[in-house]
Structures are given as structure tokens and as C-alpha cells.
């Protein structure tokens, strides 16, 4: 067997390109402004679309009259619910379930019609000329109200999802075994993706086939969505996903993209719908409003005895989630007895969906707060308390319910896996590698935690009204999930000796095009700059889960790695036969040159380009003109063993007179296994910290009485600026090696945002002695202090 297939162990020889901080592939295009994003999409002769949006939070469309709009010069087509196929479609991870325009508006901003015209201005004018008569329906905005049996129901399935429960041990016993019990009742604000970069969609039909250009993290899932919503075969949909601006889960398959496809069909020509910033913030998606009620128990020796949480997530109008990716359950899984219940519910507000670190940013923050309260009760340092109570590599995971969402039955799936592959898998439902142990220890040293930590509610320094203190927070998240499909990739070796990777992960700025290329380059022995990659075109990329759930490096990376191995084996088998007198396993490829691996005496060498040209056959009958590798090694179910971890340290200052919080020092630490590209990873870590700090300090949507959003504009929704965050940008990496991920790497993007908020909350508590709910605006700090 090829040595590369022994993927359990860290190789003794250093990697060629894995671990190198090469600039991302599109760096030049980004700094020169030449990269084309979704908003830059265009098609020759295209029309411009605008969407008519409901002004009512819940209403039946009694009458909709577009006759005046259609008379306006330059108007090409109008669609309303009467033109729509009335088919349910579902976004990845239940971020949407419903129909496009079914004659009922379920939130202010919901789509009820659309116009295509010769210009955007004409389209907007036409929208204003459409007469709509609404029949108001009863409304519900508060998730707890929406859970009551007599609440107005938004959808045929009802408002409330079946609770998603994870439990182990016996909570009553846990309570009895506890020396102290602590409790919390927290209502989280809803964070907005605030996707700088907005988005647009261009759709064009050719006969019965539609091509869609838009920014999306999930090209394959978007193709599925259009197929479902329009009732046309998957083969009749081509998605060309373009790079997005900061997305964080915002741009997957979004309803406005489906509307564009429908409008283009009616208009009989290409149509572009470009969303305004208000539409991006008020009509697409947001993080859930969440409510956590929890209890935790602890023994005097610091052992966690009980973790008991009830968590409500408000899905808004079209979200359909009942679980959140709550991997804080596994992180704190050493608790002896546990019960976590998550309740998904719908309200007449903007749809909620998965935003970066979903569940772990909210429920995780509640768990961290209660764990801190436990640590204070037994007077333990929060860092030591985490070392004592957090999961380590090899231990049992509590999220056993992965089975519930597996298509088919997990046992059945396992039966279909060849024994040879199965033997190489880690133990399912146990953590395969990594933990917070090393990053807490190394990070603590780098931050000088032991020196700077002065005990609970003990600020390091007090200067008049200003109090400084430190805090540490931890977070975990998954490394991709398989509940909604597998991953595939294709790696092709071209006649010129270059290679092309085809994997459908989209591009949202996190560098996936670069890290996937590094994986392929390492396997193939082809120089990094001779690897090209396509991540958005569903006509050339096989189906794959996109960049979501920290899937990219781990599961898509596995597919890319496996496909590259297949291509390499094909290449070496032919090269061995044609050029070398030996076994393909004796050959190696380095810098694009094939040679014997362990025979310094042999100077037989052939470049991939020479070999490929030989196989292609100039003056003889050729065997092939290119080599296509596919991923034929089954991917083990990642949810059942892989997590990534973050630990963040902060020093901050609270002004008890103004309520202002200033971040003074920050250290981000992360265990994502092998660091594929330190430049990429550190940006994920610090970027996650800044987005998490935004959630902790400033960000929260404000809802009006009709459920509409009052601050859907960057003027009114405050984000951190450069001067608001410590400038040092230092990071610490763990050095665990994963037995499954490509070259030992795991997921990366979501644990950091989960760790940031808890670190800030704890430091604020140490500074002023009270827990403040996020976002900790000056007003909330002063209220918590009893000053206003």
C-alpha cells in the first residue's frame, strides 16, 4: 500500500508545503481590487430585478395587482405567488424550510413579488406601483409566547420543533452529589451577520436549463435548493458560486437567489437582483434569539457533578432548526450527569440561521458562565477548573445523537465500509485528537496568567473609576457534519504537469482555495503554484457539503487528499511501467519530478510533464491525455469523533463611571491539529475573536413592535474598528495531529468566536463583581452596577 495511505501517524519527514504560510491564491486580486464578488456578476443584455417585500408581519395576500406596474415603460415581467410552483425547499442545516412566495407573508420584509425591468430604478418604481391588499393574521414575536399551545401558528408543521435532547447519568443524583449549585437565566440578543460585501444574483436560462452566478459558501446545496424550489432536475441547474465578502453563514442558498431564477424565467432573459445593505441585514438571515436557563453543580474538590440546560432558539419565520451545534456539551462533557434540551420555535421575525459558531457562541457562553460560577464557589482558578473538567483526547463524546440525523442508520452505513478502511478509523463517539489542555497550558504561560490572575472578583488594578482584570474563555465546535451529505472532490493532472482541484466549497475569504491546494500539492509533489482550483462551478465540481460547520479543512480536505492520492497512484503506476524498472511504491514525486524514493544510486528521473506527454502519445498510440483522481477512500463520520478547540485570554478595563469597556491585551490559542497555513489560521483566530468581541460588547438587533428590525444599517449596528481591539495579534497553536484529517489538520473557523465572549464576560466580572449579559453596552454595564 502507498505510504501516503498510512494516515494515522505524523510522518517523520517534514512537509513540503503543508504548514507554510504562503499568501492566499487570490491575494493579488484582492489587494488590486480585481477579484469579482457576487455584486460584480453580470450577463450580457441582462435586466434588473427588485423584490416586493411585505410591510406586515403576518398576513394573507388577499389581492395583488401589478397592472399599473406592467404598464410602466421598461418593465419586463412581474412575478407573485401565483407564478410560483409552491414547492417546499430546504436550506442546509434547516436554515430555511418553506416555499418561495406562497401567498402568506410571515415577517416584515418577506418576499411577496418581484419585478424585472430595463434598469434598477424602473424596477424600484414598478415595485411601488404594485397594489397589495393584506388580510392581517395574528402575530407572535416572543419565542416563549410562540411555544404556548394557543399561540398563532406560522406554518403547517406548527411553531415548535420536537426538543432535541442530549443526556447522560441522572440529574437528580447529580444534584444530590453537588456541594454547590449555581443557576443562570440568560436572554441573548440576535447578532447580525452584517455581511460587508452584500450580495447579488444573476440568473439566465438557456432552453430549460438555468445558470446562476452569486456569492455562496455552498454551491452544491444551492443547486439542490433551486432544483427543489423550481421542481426541475438537478442536472438542469448550474451554479457558479463567486467569492463573497465576509459571510459567516449568511450566503448559502438564500431565497432571493431562487426568486432571481424564477424572475429570469418569466422575463425570458438574464436578470440580476442586487440586494441593498438594508435587505442584507433585514431580509436574509440573522443569528437566533436564544434563551438559556441552566444549572450546574460542583463538588468542593472542583469536580463538575451536574450540567442541566434548557435552551430555546428562535428560528424567525423560515428557519427550522431544533438543535444547535452545541459542542460545548462535549467540551464540558466530564460533568458526571448531564441534560441538555434545545427547543426550536418560529416567530414572525426575520429568519434565523447558522451564524459562525452557532450554539457554541450562546449556549456555550452560558455553560462557561456557570462553570466560572462553580469555580468561584470552590475558589479555583478558572484555568485550572477548565483543565480539570474539560474533555481530553480519547474520551467519550456526549453528542451521541449524531445517529439521529444520519441518512439511513449509522450501523448500516458502517456495514458498507470495507474492513480495511474501518480498521484505520478512530474510535467512534470518542474524541480523536486535541483538546484545550495544551493551549490552556501553553497559552497560560505566554499570557503570564498565573501572575496576572488575582482571584475571583479581584481586579488587578484600580485607577479611580477604572478597573482592570483578566479573563480566560474556551470554546469548541465540530469539524464538519455528515447529516446532509458526503463530500467529493476531483483532482486532475494535466498534460503540462500542472494539476487542478475541483471541490465545491465556495470562497468566503477564509482561504479554502489555498489550503485545499496545499493538500493537493503535498500529496502530488507538484509545486503549489502549479495547482489550480475550482470551488464554485457545480458543472465541474462533484457534490460536496460546502464551507459550513467548519467542514472545509477536515471533510472536504479529506476528499481532496483522497482524490489526490488516487491521481498520484495512477500516475506512478503508469510511470513505473513506462520509465522505471520497479514497483510504483518505490517511486516518489518531488517538485514535479518522478524518481526512485530510496535509491540514491539511480539517476532515472522524469518530470510529470514528460510522463504525461508520453502517456498522451505523440507518435505512438497514447494511453490517456490526463489523469483524473477521485476520492475512493470512505470518509469516517467526523461528527462522531472530531472537534476543534480555542482558548482566549484577555485583559480589559471597565470604566465604572461611563460603563465603557476597553480591550487592552488579547491572546488567541487554538488546537486545530496540524496548522495547514499559519497566515490563514491566525486570521481565523483573531477574526473570530473580533467577531466574538462584537457579540460580547456591541452587537444586537433591535426589534420594533411589528417584529421589523430597527437597526438594519451599519450606522446603527455598531461593529468593532481597528482601534477597538488590541493590536498585538499574537497567537499560540496546539500541535496535536489528527488521525483522519488531511496531514493531521482539523476544522478551524468556529471555536474562536465561541471562546472570545466568555473570556470578556469573565474579565468584566472580575473587574466589577457582577455578571453582565451580552452585549455589554455601557448602558447594560451601568445597569448591572446599579448606577442607572
Amino acid at each position, binding site marked *: 500500500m502507498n505510504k501516503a495511505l498510512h494516515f494515522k501517524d505524523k510522518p517523520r519527514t517534514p512537509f513540503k508545503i503543508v504548514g507554510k*504560510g504562503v*499568501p*492566499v491564491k*487570490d*491575494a*493579488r*486580486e*484582492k*489587494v*488590486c*481590487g*480585481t*477579484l*469579482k*464578488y457576487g*455584486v*460584480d456578476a453580470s450577463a450580457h443584455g441582462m435586466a434588473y430585478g427588485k423584490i416586493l417585500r411585505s410591510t406586515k408581519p403576518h398576513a394573507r395576500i388577499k389581492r395583488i395587482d401589478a397592472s399599473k406596474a406592467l404598464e410602466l415603460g421598461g418593465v419586463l415581467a412581474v412575478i407573485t405567488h401565483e407564478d410560483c410552483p409552491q414547492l417546499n425547499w430546504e436550506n442546509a442545516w434547516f436554515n430555511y424550510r418553506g416555499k418561495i412566495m406562497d401567498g402568506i407573508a410571515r415577517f416584515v420584509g418577506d418576499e411577496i413579488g418581484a419585478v424585472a425591468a430595463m434598469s434598477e430604478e424602473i424596477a424600484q418604481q414598478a415595485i411601488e406601483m404594485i397594489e397589495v391588499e393584506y388580510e392581517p393574521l395574528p402575530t407572535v414575536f416572543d419565542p416563549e409566547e410562540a411555544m404556548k399551545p394557543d399561540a398563532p401558528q406560522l406554518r403547517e408543521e406548527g411553531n415548535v420543533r420536537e426538543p432535541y435532547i442530549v443526556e447522560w447519568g441522572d440529574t437528580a443524583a447529580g444534584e444530590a452529589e453537588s456541594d454547590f449549585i449555581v443557576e443562570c437565566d440568560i436572554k441573548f440578543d440576535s447578532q447580525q451577520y*452584517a*455581511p*460587508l*460585501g*452584500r450580495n447579488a444574483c444573476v440568473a439566465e436560462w438557456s432552453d430549460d436549463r438555468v445558470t446562476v452566478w452569486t456569492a455562496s459558501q455552498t454551491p452544491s446545496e444551492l443547486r439542490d435548493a433551486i432544483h427543489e424550489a423550481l421542481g426541475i432536475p438537478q442536472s438542469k441547474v448550474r451554479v457558479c458560486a463567486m*467569492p*463573497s*465578502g*465576509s*459571510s459567516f453563514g449568511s450566503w448559502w442558498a438564500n431565497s432571493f437567489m431562487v426568486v432571481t431564477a424564477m424572475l429570469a424565467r418569466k422575463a425570458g432573459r438574464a436578470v440580476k437582483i442586487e440586494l*441593498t*445593505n438594508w435587505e442584507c441585514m433585514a431580509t436574509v438571515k440573522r443569528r437566533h434569539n436564544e434563551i438559556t436557563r441552566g444549572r450546574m453543580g460542583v463538588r468542593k474538590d472542583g469536580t463538575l457533578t451536574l450540567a442541566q440546560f434548557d435552551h430555546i432558539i428562535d428560528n424567525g419565520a423560515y428557519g427550522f432548526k431544533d438543535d444547535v451545534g452545541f459542542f460545548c456539551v462535549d467540551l464540558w462533557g466530564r460533568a458526571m450527569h448531564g441534560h441538555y434540551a434545545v427547543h426550536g420555535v418560529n416567530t414572525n421575525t426575520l429568519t434565523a440561521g447558522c451564524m459562525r459558531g452557532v450554539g457554541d457562541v450562546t449556549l456555550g457562553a452560558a455553560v462557561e458562565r456557570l462553570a466560572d460560577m462553580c469555580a468561584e464557589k470552590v475558589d479555583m482558578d478558572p484555568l485550572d477548573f477548565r483543565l480539570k473538567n474539560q474533555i481530553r483526547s480519547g474520551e467519550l463524546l456526549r453528542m451521541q445523537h449524531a445517529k439521529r440525523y444520519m441518512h439511513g442508520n449509522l450501523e448500516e452505513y458502517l456495514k458498507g465500509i470495507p474492513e480495511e478502511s474501518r480498521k484505520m478509523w478512530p474510535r467512534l463517539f470518542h474524541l480523536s485528537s486535541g483538546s484545550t489542555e495544551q493551549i490552556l497550558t501553553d497559552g497560560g504561560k505566554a499570557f503570564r496568567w498565573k501572575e496576572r490572575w488575582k482571584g475571583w472578583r479581584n481586579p488587578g488594578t484600580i485607577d479611580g473609576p477604572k478597573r482592570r482584570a483578566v479573563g480566560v474563555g474556551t470554546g469548541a465546535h465540530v469539524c464538519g457534519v455528515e447529516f446532509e451529505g458526503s463530500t467529493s472532490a476531483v483532482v486532475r493532472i494535466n498534460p503540462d504537469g500542472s494539476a487542478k482541484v475541483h471541490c465545491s466549497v465556495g470562497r*468566503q*475569504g*477564509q*482561504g479554502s482555495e489555498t489550503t485545499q491546494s496545499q493538500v493537493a500539492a503535498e500529496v502530488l509533489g507538484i509545486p503549489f503554484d502549479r495547482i489550480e482550483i475550482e470551488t464554485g462551478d457545480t458543472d465541474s465540481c462533484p457534490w460536496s457539503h460546502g464551507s459550513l460547520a467548519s467542514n472545509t479543512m477536515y471533510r472536504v480536505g479529506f476528499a481532496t487528499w483522497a482524490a489526490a492520492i488516487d491521481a498520484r497512484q495512477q500516475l506512478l503506476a503508469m510511470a513505473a511501467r513506462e520509465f522505471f524498472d520497479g514497483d510504483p511504491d518505490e517511486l516518489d514525486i518531488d517538485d514535479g519530478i518522478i524518481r526512485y524514493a530510496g535509491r540514491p544510486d539511480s539517476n532515472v528521473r522524469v518530470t510529470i510533464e514528460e510522463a504525461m506527454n508520453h502517456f498522451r502519445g505523440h507518435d505512438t498510440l497514447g494511453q490517456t491525455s490526463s489523469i483524473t483522481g477521485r476520492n475512493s477512500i470512505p470518509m469516517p463520520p467526523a461528527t462522531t469523533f472530531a472537534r476543534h478547540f480555542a482558548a482566549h485570554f484577555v485583559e480589559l478595563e471597565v470604566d465604572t463611571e461611563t460603563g465603557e469597556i476597553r480591550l487592552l491585551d488579547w491572546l488567541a490559542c487554538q488546537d486545530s491539529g496540524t496548522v495547514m497555513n499559519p*497566515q*490563514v489560521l*491566525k*486570521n*481565523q483566530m*483573531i*477574526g*473570530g*475573536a*473580533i*467577531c466574538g468581541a462584537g457579540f460580547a460588547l456591541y452587537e444586537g438587533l433591535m426589534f420594533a413592535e411589528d417584529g421589523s428590525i430597527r437597526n438594519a*444599517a*451599519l*450606522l446603527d449596528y455598531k*461593529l*468593532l*474598528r*481597528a*482601534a*477597538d*481591539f*488590541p*493590536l*498585538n*495579534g499574537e497567537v499560540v497553536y496546539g500541535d496535536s495531529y489528527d488521525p483522519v484529517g488531511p496531514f493531521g489538520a482539523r476544522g478551524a473557523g468556529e471555536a474562536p468566536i465561541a471562546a472570545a465572549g466568555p473570556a470578556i464576560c469573565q474579565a468584566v466580572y472580575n473587574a466589577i463583581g457582577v455578571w453582565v449579559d451580552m452585549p455589554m453596552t455601557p448602558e447594560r454595564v451601568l445597569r448591572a452596577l446599579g448606577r442607572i
Partner: protein
Amino acid sequence: MIELRVNGKKYEVEARPHDRLSTVLRDRLFLHGVRVSCTEGECGSCTILLDSVPVTSCMVLAMQAEGRDIVTIEGLGTPDNVHPIQQAYIEEQGFQCGFCTPGFIMATKAFLDRNPSPTEEEAALAISGNICRCGAYPYIVRSVMKAAEKLRQQKASAAD
């Protein structure tokens, strides 16, 4: 019709009285490096130089820019021949998605023209009119500092 001078070239373009400069630059001159996000002067993505002063071009009417010197990111460097500031951003990876990057680079240009040897704190304040939602700020500040160094070296070697 108005006449605009953009990146050293003259253009005759159609512009109505209410057209924003950003719209004209993007939709009529196809300078897509002018990124538009908030359209209310808050995010800084559409920052350009107007007579060497950084402005958010979504807040300037096209007609107000007539006869003035406009520089966009396209006027700074090209992928084949990047400007030292752009090179510094690449080396320090002062971005993730890159959407806000042209705006940050134009703000950096104006700042370093004014203050060639800044402190980190001055640099952070100077780019605080721009939002990077990906949160690359510490590395953007490093990029500004490295750009300053590159430009000082370039000036010194030109003087030799």
C-alpha cells in the same frame, strides 16, 4: 455629460445630478475595485482619493468630482506590478475576504502620504474609518507599518 479625471485618464461620462460618484465609477467606468457596501459613508469600502484626500465615494455626487483628481485602487498598482502598500498587505495577510481591502489600502495611502513614520496606534486610528467584518485589524495595522517601511526605503534609495 461630465468630465472626470480618474487615475490620470480623462473620461466623458453620463451622470445625472443625483448619481453618486461610486455608482459612476463602478457602473459606467467599470472600476469594480470601488467596493460599495453600506451606501451611507459608514463602512469605508468605497474609499477613493479625491485631490489626495480619502473620501467615501458613496457620499460624493459625481458632479462634485468634476475637474478634480480621482484615484481609485486601480490607479495604485496592478496584479503584475503591485504598489509597495499592496505588497505589504500581501506579506502581512492584512485581509481575509478582501472586499474592504481596496478601501483600507486607499486610506493607508492617504495616511502614509501625510505621516510616513507612524506609530501603531496612529495607524490604527487612521484606518478606523473603515470596517473589516472579517476582523483582520491587527494584521492590517502590521500591513500599514510594513508599507511605511517599504515606502521609506524606496524614498531613501531614490535619493541615493
